[in-house]
């Protein structure tokens, strides 16, 4: 068979495949709509955050809120504690650490004038 004859045969074949039946198209569309319904609840299940949830998020979530709460509790505790107790805890410490501890003796010349 010559190439042009074969090409004509192939060209003719473009129009001989059967069209999908209406029933097939209906089944396929029904499948598509069913699958689409399965997709949509997954998107709808994410609710809008409420007022307190937005405030909570604005503060940075759990780590930040936990830190704030801890700082508040410590602040209240310090506020209500007798200052003598704190003096008791810190009274033994020297007031000027630089006089007692010389961390870098070889660098004393840097502190001298002239």
């Amino acid at each position, binding site marked *: 068979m*010559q190439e042009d004859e074969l*090409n004509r*045969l*192939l060209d003719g074949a473009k129009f001989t495949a*059967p069209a999908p039946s209406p029933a097939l198209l209906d089944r396929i569309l029904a499948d598509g709509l069913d699958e*689409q319904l399965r997709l949509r609840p997954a998107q709808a299940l994410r609710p809008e955050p409420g007022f307190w949830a937005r405030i909570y998020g604005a503060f940075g979530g759990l780590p930040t809120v936990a830190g704030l709460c801890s700082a508040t509790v410590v602040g209240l505790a310090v506020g209500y504690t007798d200052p003598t107790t704190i003096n008791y805890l810190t009274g033994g410490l020297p007031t000027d650490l630089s006089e007692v501890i010389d961390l870098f003796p070889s660098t004393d010349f840097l502190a001298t004038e002239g």
Partner: protein
Amino acid sequence: MKMALDADTDTSDEALMVLYANGDRHAALALTQRITPRVMGYAYRLLSGDRAEAEDVAQETMLRLWRMAPEWRQGEAKVATWAYRVATNLCTDRFRSRRRQGRVALEDAPDVADPAVSADTRLVEADRTNALQAALAALPDRQRQAVVLRHIEGLSNPEIAEVMGLGVEAVESLTARGKRALAAILSGRKAELGYEDD
């Protein structure tokens, strides 16, 4: 105002996929009308003109398309090319299964009638269609796929390369060899197919 989408709309297949994934029912209809006939015709060719199996392949291909839609990324592939690739794999599985069961024969092709032409012409056309279908069935899988995609479905070589997962040169080679094989198979039936009178 929201316009209903159908097969004739200018909206691209890729955009329809996104619309479908976002819940647009009209996009489902438009994709059904656009993609199904192409997949069905292609499967019909690959499966030796078995309409029932071609319908099954078309439905399965479209089902996979629906499920793929939420992950579809615009610009990465054409929807039709993707659908052809899925259909190719499904047809290959079915064709091999039929071969294992010994169900593929050159005479498998069914009669195809077009009521708009005369009885004589219809007979000749039906003979030619059946002969081509039988000759296609006798080709190796990859040659048959390449020839059908190129010369019947009208895809470009790069598109076929994407469908088949091959390079363009390999597609050109498959198509050329497929056509030579088809010509050889059909040359013994030229007179029967009425080509000597043309």
